[in-house]
């Protein structure tokens, strides 16, 4: 059985809320999500996004030994190719997805049809197909393939497929279709997951099969425009283990009856302020896309969620959330990325070394940054949970707001090579990375 229990909801401190947006900070809660496959997840918590089954820059042993990542967000589109045309090897793999990607046994796996955030496909979805982007181009993913993959691959959590229009403002008919298809696709998934009901066994005697937790998508639409779909969710609440969103606003359309389900935000690219706003609205799980974006840019995170009483700062002297490690001022700085940090990177290396590795475009730079950045986020969520349990959430939240700048720094250096599924070229662009070495004879030798 997959269960979720809310442990505590944040108490609203009247003095503090007077300065905050009304209603925005009252729903923060801690909870515990028990997954049928044996994982216990304290919430609010985060999942690390993966690319082709790995948390970028981290081999599975590094993930296990040097991070506290409890769960990963894996997309089926990363395992299917447009060409060669053949049955995706993953479908013929005799074991589970977890085993295929050598995921540490202590990490839970969430399966989604698409990456998050993902590249919008030019071709619209159809009644039976979802448009996806593979490493070599766009193609269709038949919904029935996704549904049967879920059974074979045994994820711990599986997301329902949502039909998101590939235009910015879909028309009335398209919106109706979005809700209808999402509902139909969810039913297909639930039908397959619960086929045989509670009687089904895993072939080892009469042990009930450990079913994945199904999270139903909430569409990025106003409440009224997905009313029938939401009602359908309420009717099927027994079969649902959670809800998944792509926009902040969608949180507010959740009907009262579904409020007890864990809520996952699958697309967090804005940073910690965005996370806190969503925790305040009662979101429990976060797929933290911003961590990888910062790591790729060579930026080290160093924000802390704490109960410290800070003097309100003016915009000018608010603290940075993170620092660009490409900056030349770190060339001889032998202090750790963050003072007092107990992550592998900070215990073993210093800023000058990381900056040197970036400058040399050595892969180790991004490995070390990813380990540190994930640790910062792990501590952040740990403190958010503690603040709710100990009753200082509101103080911590408003303190964070006045203490830190709103935006993440913008990267100045070169990232690792960008790939097609991360970046869509528009044609006519110059080279992103210039060659480092130049010929001595090419006219640059005036100084010699």
């Amino acid at each position: 059985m997959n269960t979720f229990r809310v442990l505590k909801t944040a108490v609203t401190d009247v003095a503090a809320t007077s300065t905050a947006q009304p209603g925005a900070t009252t729903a923060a809660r801690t909870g515990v999500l028990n997954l049928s496959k044996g994982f216990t997840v304290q919430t609010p918590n985060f999942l690390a996004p993966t690319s082709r089954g790995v948390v970028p820059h981290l081999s599975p042993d590094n993930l296990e030994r040097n991070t506290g990542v409890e769960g990963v967000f894996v997309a089926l589109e990363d395992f299917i190719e447009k060409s060669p045309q053949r049955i995706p090897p993953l479908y013929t793999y005799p074991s589970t997805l977890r085993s295929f990607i050598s995921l540490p046994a202590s990490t839970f796996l969430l399966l989604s049809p698409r990456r998050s955030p993902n590249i919008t496909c030019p071709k619209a979805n159809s009644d039976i197909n979802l448009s996806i982007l593979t490493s070599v181009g766009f193609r269709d993913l038949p919904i029935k393939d996704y549904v049967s993959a879920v059974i074979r691959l045994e994820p711990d959590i599986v997301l329902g497929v949502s039909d998101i229009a590939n235009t910015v403002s879909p028309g009335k008919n398209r919106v109706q279709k979005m809700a209808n298809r999402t509902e139909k696709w969810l039913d297909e998934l639930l039908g397959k997951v619960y086929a045989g009901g509670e009687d089904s066994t895993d072939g080892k005697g009469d042990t009930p099969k450990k079913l994945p937790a199904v999270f139903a998508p909430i569409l990025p639409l106003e409440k009224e425009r997905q009313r029938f779909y939401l009602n359908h969710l309420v009717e099927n609440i027994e079969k649902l283990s959670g809800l998944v969103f792509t926009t902040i606003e969608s949180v507010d359309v959740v009907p009262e009856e579904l409020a007890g389900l864990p809520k996952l935000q699958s697309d967090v690219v804005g940073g910690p302020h965005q996370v806190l706003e969503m925790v305040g609205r009662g979101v429990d799980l976060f797929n933290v896309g911003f961590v990888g974006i910062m790591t790729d840019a060579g930026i080290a995170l160093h924000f802390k969620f704490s109960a410290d009483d800070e003097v309100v700062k003016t915009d000018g002297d608010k603290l940075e959330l993170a620092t660009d490690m490409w900056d030349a001022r770190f060339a001889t700085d032998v202090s750790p990325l963050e003072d007092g940090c107990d992550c592998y990177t900070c215990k073993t290396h210093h800023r000058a070394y990381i900056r040197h590795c970036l400058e040399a475009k050595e892969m180790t730079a991004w490995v070390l940054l990813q380990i540190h950045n994930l640790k910062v986020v792990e501590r952040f969520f740990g403190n958010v949970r503690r603040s709710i349990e100990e009753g200082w959430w509101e103080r911590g939240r408003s303190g964070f707001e006045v203490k830190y700048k709103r935006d993440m720094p913008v990267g100045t250096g070169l990232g690792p090579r960008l790939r097609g599924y991360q970046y869509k070229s528009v044609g006519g662009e110059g080279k992103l990375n210039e060659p480092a070495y130049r010929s001595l004879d090419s006219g640059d030798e005036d100084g010699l």
Partner: protein
Amino acid sequence: MVSLLKLAKITEEGVRFLSPHDGSPMLLTPEHSMSLQNSIGSDIMMQLDDVIATTSPDKERMVEAMHRSVRWLDRCIEAHKYPEKQNLFCIIQGGLDLDLRRTCVKEMVKRDTPGIAIGGLSGGEEKAKYCAVVRTCTEMLPDMKPRYVMGVGYPEDLIVSVALGADMFDCVWPTRTARFGNAVTSRGTLNLRHASYAADFSPVDEDCGCPCCRSEENGGLGVTKAYIHHLTGKETAGAHILTMHNVYYLLDLMRNARQAIIADNYPSFVKEFFGKIYRYDKAEYPVWAVDALQTVGIDLTEA
């Protein structure tokens, strides 16, 4: 200075090139090279040498490079600040000309450096000529000094060079080839990017004890060829995993070579090594290896 030779200009003073960081002109002299290595504090330091490709037809330039390397060695020894705690290795040059090599060995051995490197090789020369140079040098070198053949890393080259009397090697190939998706195994090198591995769910090397190949039950990652195929060229973690395997394989190969020498059965170790790669099909054995091993009394052709 063999790497990126086209981008540099060599004079008696040193090597001129443009900084890869900001394009500014740089001059690397033997003295500056020593000062850098002294401040790095490496246990082994390498002299600055003048190297040209062994395949160059310019005999005169080859002679000049060899003599200059000897002169630069003297300047390096002179400039080396911590001979008591850092070991400076000379680098024998002379291309594929065995007489030039002999002259260089004689001159450099006189300087009595703590270790001796054989340089300039592994630049695309014929394997038979490579073996002749290594053998010519090792025959003349003192027994009690480490002999380091620079730039060598193919498993066959390592095993043959050890037989010819070399002790140490360095090479970018095992890790670089891992980044390209090539696995070095006891059955030869496998290009895991090939489509035939897409659905191959066996470990990279069945006989390997590295963290990547060991099964999860045995505390490893249980990575399959198919998963490396899936990651290669797309996610760097694939390069990390395969690098772990390739480095482990080579370290393990050399560990086994040492044990075989100590146990006095290196010849049978060599035979088993080649047998496994070429499925004991003697017609497939590379001629250069058979010939080179013959010169030191290892006969690959006998049962």
